[in-house]
């Protein structure tokens, strides 16, 4: 069904809902590359004005990616909470924005609504929102998850300790883990991106992190970020796995290019659950996403990249993940050109994920061929801290020496905690104090004496 909007004498016509959504999206290079972006600033606003008048219920009947062709669409439609949707069923997209900003949309109400909000509804309303709206509403959303600690409580922000090494050298990875712990990082997960995909190497890394966590009784979890089928395989071989990881995207065809479908994810989750390694909860999945992945796999169905990113959160949702993060600036300037586009995308992704009830963190990052730098990352992480982001990355000196990109550092999270008063997961916060890394105020203690952690690697410290 075509959509029309008049601006003065000029009629703007949008062939269908997916064209309307694409043209209403704040400008970004990926939609331009796909040839679906608005071609003038006025057309962009006309599309937003038109989108504001579309009833939310339209998204339940007019699929952007055909139901018959795509299991992600089927998942979204078949698991939609129709009863929960009733309180907002009469709203247009524009009304929905006003509702979300109003005091009527309390934290409790938003949590109850989450299963009734489809990714397309979340994406649509985000297109009408300014950055401050995205921050204000996300801040009200509460998503709490548990494995060996409690992540997502109000006033907290966790950190993934990312100790990557170009050749997976165990001593090098251990050195970065110790540095990160001594800077108070690691409550979200100690998560290694391996350079290798060989099972013996992955098993060695899993045993290494398991040993550190067990020896110091650290209330956190580990993950080696490899393909879900590989994690399932190492679980079958008796290797200790806390969280099962997978990159996911918002269409079935893009997920096929990642070598997965919903059934594969279910198998991976069941394998992790069978180990019963969580002490506080059974959120055992860790997912990563990022705008542009479907276009990059030539699997975008003419849908804009921000809407497809929100659909990726619908893929995550039924698997009750501990952590989900958008790797917002990793994909390159052909999808998000500069700091402005990366900042906007990071805020959109966080908002859509939280509104849908997914524990969204953000890899606040960029590559060296994007028009961005560390100042842009300072801006985005500060905004996300204000928005209540579930977690960010902690990478030594912001420089990932294996993946060749820049993210946030062990130092950066200290800055955010000082400026915004954000605490860690409470169990991890207590552990840091008990082992003498932080004081009662949560800040790093001044140097003095030798921390017991340093005795872990006498060969390294000698």
């Amino acid at each position: 069904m075509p959509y029309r909007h008049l601006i003065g004498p000029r009629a703007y016509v949008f062939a269908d809902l997916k064209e309307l959504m694409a043209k209403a999206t704040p400008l970004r290079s990926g939609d331009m590359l796909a040839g679906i972006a608005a071609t003038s600033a006025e057309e962009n606003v006309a599309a937003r004005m038109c989108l504001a008048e579309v009833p939310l219920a339209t998204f339940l009947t007019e699929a952007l990616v055909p139901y018959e062709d795509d299991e992600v669409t089927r998942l979204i439609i078949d698991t939609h909470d129709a009863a929960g949707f009733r309180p907002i069923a009469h709203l247009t997209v524009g009304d929905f924005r006003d509702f979300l900003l109003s005091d009527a949309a309390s934290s409790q109400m938003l949590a109850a609504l989450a299963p009734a909000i489809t990714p397309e509804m979340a994406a649509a309303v985000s297109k009408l929102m300014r950055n401050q709206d995205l921050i204000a509403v996300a801040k009200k959303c509460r998503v709490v998850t548990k494995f060996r600690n409690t992540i997502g409580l109000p006033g907290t922000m966790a950190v993934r300790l990312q100790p990557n090494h170009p050749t997976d050298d165990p001593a090098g990875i251990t050195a970065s883990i110790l540095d990160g712990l001594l800077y108070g990082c690691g409550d979200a997960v100690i998560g290694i991106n391996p350079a290798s995909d060989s099972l013996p190497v992955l098993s060695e890394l899993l045993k290494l992190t398991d040993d550190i966590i067990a020896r110091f009784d650290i209330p956190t979890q580990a993950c080696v970020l490899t393909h879900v089928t590989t994690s399932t395989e190492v679980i079958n071989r008796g290797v200790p796995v806390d969280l099962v990881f997978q990159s996911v995207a918002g269409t079935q065809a893009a997920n096929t290019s990642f070598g997965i479908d919903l059934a594969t994810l279910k198998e991976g989750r069941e394998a992790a659950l069978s180990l019963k390694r969580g002490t506080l909860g059974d959120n055992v999945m860790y997912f990563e996403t990022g705008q542009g992945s479907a276009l990059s796999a030539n699997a975008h169905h003419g849908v804009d990249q921000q809407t497809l990113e929100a659909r990726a959160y619908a893929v995550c949702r039924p698997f009750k993940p501990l952590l989900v993060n958008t790797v917002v600036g990793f994909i390159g300037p052909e999808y998000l050109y500069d700091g402005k586009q990366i900042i906007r995308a990071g805020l959109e992704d966080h908002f859509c994920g939280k509104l849908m009830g997914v524990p969204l963190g953000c890899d606040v990052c960029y590559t060296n061929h994007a028009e961005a730098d560390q100042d842009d990352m300072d801006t985005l992480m500060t905004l996300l801290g204000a928005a209540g982001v579930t977690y960010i990355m902690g990478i030594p000196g912001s420089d990932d020496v294996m993946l060749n990109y820049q993210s946030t550092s062990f130092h950066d999270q200290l800055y955010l905690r000082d400026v915004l008063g954000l605490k860690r997961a409470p169990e991890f916060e207590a552990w840091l104090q008990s082992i003498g890394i932080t004081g009662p105020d949560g800040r790093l203690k001044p140097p003095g004496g030798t921390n017991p952690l340093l005795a872990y690697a006498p060969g390294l410290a000698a």
Partner: protein
Amino acid sequence: MNDDSRPPNAYVIEDAWAKLARATPARIALGRSGTGLPTREVLRFALAHAQARDAVHTAFEAKATAAAIAALGFETVHVASAAPSREAYLRRPDLGRKLSEEGRAALAPFAGSTPDLALVVADGLSSTAIHAQAAPFLAALKPRLAQEGWSTGPVVIASQSRVALGDEVGAILAAKAVVVLIGERPGLSSPDSLGLYLTFAPKLGRSDAERNCISNVRGEGLSHDHAAFKLTWLLKEALARRLTGVSLKDESDLLLVGGKPPASRLAGGQTG
């Protein structure tokens, strides 16, 4: 400039685990100023980022590159992709994978020359890498090619180019295989890293799953001679098995002697 002669800065809290830093190239034990990085680390990071940015945006010196390669005894020809500028190149990966009209015309004299291996030198995302690594790598490769008796076409110097441009070049030359030497996406600690992409039976539309890649070719990474050895091994296998890509696993390491590739019999004095 060396800081050792200056008194320690009272406002910088040094980390007590500096020796851990020997175990990894990662930026650990940096110390802190309050919760921030010490000034020396902010500046060290800024320099690394500046070098990586410059590697992306430094103009490709195609003529000088061609001259250095010609001095090794290769014929050279210069082509450009369909991307008219660096900005267009970064925004439109599709244009960087296609030859410009002029580029296609420049290759016409070599069309259908059926070399065993077509050689393409592409700026990619780091012209710095090509300036530093392309000629020395080809110098290491040349005696190994000669030893196998393989013919090569002209070395095609390609501006604003991505890996898949080699498919069109290889198809025009009707080469049995093409190798693209390309500047890799620069990291903070590796602004000058060269990648080698080998594709059997090049033609338009080949996917990345149909290529073999040798990456991180640079002084601190894989040496030129070792990379040349790996490429020769892969090409020999590719020509015998008539494929490249995921079905061809690099097992050249099994032939290393003391961690080093065996010397080429023709290497003496020729590589310069």
